[in-house]
């Protein structure tokens, strides 16, 4: 579904992402991306979703080179994302923002998204006034509208407790399988990633270190040395 070929991103003289190759294959699979701070996880998501122009390499989505496509184009063609810092419309009600985007994307099954993210009780609340955990769910709901084929999430567990994060991941896993989409999740909480993701990729210092099942990654000597340490 998604092929990332030799992707590089520079911030001035700093090379944040250095020739990363990665393939996201199956629908219904949750793909976790982990790595220490500064590994380039969020930069990778930014480059794939068009938020940041890559310095080199290519992004192919469903066989088509989309490296120069706009963010809006990617979204309209089934690539959605959520953000590390909740990115919702604070001054609109939950209903207003969900409806606005559902109409634009021609999604007439908005009720399914509301049910899936359990937002039925706060539809008429201004998003800025609801609890942070619910705001995170609104953020993911905004990304789920239009039934995207590929969902990319940047630290969906940011600001949540370990238990809340694990619950969110379990829910995401079910959702991804139920909807038959592919999802890529950047996350610091390694336990949640190993517990819920089908495939895990490790980045370190902007480079691709390893990709495999959680069991393979746990046992990978390079990953243990660079990131997991003795805790694995």
């Amino acid at each position, binding site marked *: 579904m998604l092929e990332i070929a030799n992707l590089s991103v520079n911030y001035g003289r700093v090379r944040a992402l250095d020739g990363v190759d990665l393939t996201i294959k199956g629908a219904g699979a949750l793909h976790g991306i982990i790595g220490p701070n500064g590994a380039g996880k969020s930069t990778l998501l930014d480059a794939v*979703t068009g*938020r940041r122009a890559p310095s080199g390499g290519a992004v192919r989505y469903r066989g088509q080179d989309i490296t120069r496509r*706009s*963010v*809006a184009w990617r*979204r*309209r063609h089934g690539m*959605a*994302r959520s*953000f590390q810092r909740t*990115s*919702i*419309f*604070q*001054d*609109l009600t939950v*209903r*207003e*923002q969900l*409806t*606005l*985007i559902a*109409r*634009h*994307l021609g999604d007439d*099954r*908005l*009720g*399914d998204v*509301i*049910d*899936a*993210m*359990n*937002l*039925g*009780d706060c*539809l008429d609340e201004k998003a800025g006034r609801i609890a942070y955990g619910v705001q995170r769910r609104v953020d993911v709901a*905004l*990304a789920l*509208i*239009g039934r995207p084929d590929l969902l990319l999430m940047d630290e969906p567990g940011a600001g949540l407790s370990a238990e809340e994060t694990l619950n969110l991941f379990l*829910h995401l896993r079910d959702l991804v399988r139920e909807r038959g989409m592919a999802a890529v999740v950047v996350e610091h909480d390694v336990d949640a990633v190993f517990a819920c993701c089908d495939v895990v990729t490790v980045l370190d210092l902007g480079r691709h270190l390893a990709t495999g099942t959680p069991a393979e990654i746990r046992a990978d000597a390079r990953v243990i040395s660079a990131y997991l340490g003795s805790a694995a």
Partner: protein
Amino acid sequence: MSGGTSRAAARSGVLLGGGVSTRAPVTVLLAALIFALGAYAPTHFLSEFALRIGAGGLLLGILALSVAFLMSQAGLVALGAASVYGGVGYLFAICLSEWDLSPTAALLFAFVAVVVYSAALGALIVRTNPLAFMMLTLAAGEMISHSVMLEGLRDYTSGADGLVVNFKGAVFGMTSADFANATRFWPIAWSAAWGLGLAAFTVRRSRFGAILRAIRENEERMRFSGFGTYLPRLVAFVFVNAIAGVCGLLHVLNSGFVSPESLGLSVSTNALVAALIGGVAGSTGPIAGGVLFAVAQDQFGAHGFTQLLTGVAIVVFIVLLPRGVVGALLDAVRRSDRRGTG
């Protein structure tokens, strides 16, 4: 995580609409009554001088409406409203005097020309950040203001002397003298304020209005939701300039004169201040702010301290009533409603 209630609500269509308020017909009737009374009652009870001040206030209010709409809907402050307001007057005058167009054709040409100008300017500047946008509208306005003073254009613009606009025939059934008559012009200014206010209200309440507000609030999320954010901003910019254009045409028809002062920065800042005094969030606030500003200017002028008292009044209004006079009134009504129901 599941819940059948929201699904059922969505299927029944409740999700997509807010329902019709039972107060709506009463509000419409009340508004129609106020409109009819306001259009004709003042012409019987107010002096010609008061009508002239009032009509000037309404025109300033319409200009303030254009500024306020862009502020509240798109988060952009424009300081170039005068360039459209005065520019359309100059174009109208030149069409009449130099090209011998009929008054109606001259009006249409001038209006279309400023809309095209707005679209071209907007295409260049709506992409920028709010501060840069404000400075660019100021720069564009100042360029136009100074261009009418250029020696090479003096044959067309008469430089600092300005142009007298005295057309033959009629525009929409009214002669040049009718427009200059305060009693006859008041209902026109009143109707224009209502019509343009209603247009702004309709756009604000439309899906397009919701898109604009969402872009203002979180442009990045809008792009990541599949929206282009450039075109809606451009359309909003053209829309508010069309309002300013209508306002400028009414002004020149009424005053029969257009001068470099009508293009000046003070016209733009007066409109901005009027919008802040009345409140930028709706259509009523800026228009009421325009009338208040015009009346206050007249009263302050009578005491000979116009600028000083205007400055004090602006500070007092903005500090004490940050949502403007209309916003404060609405807040008071809501508080009273809550006390009544609680």
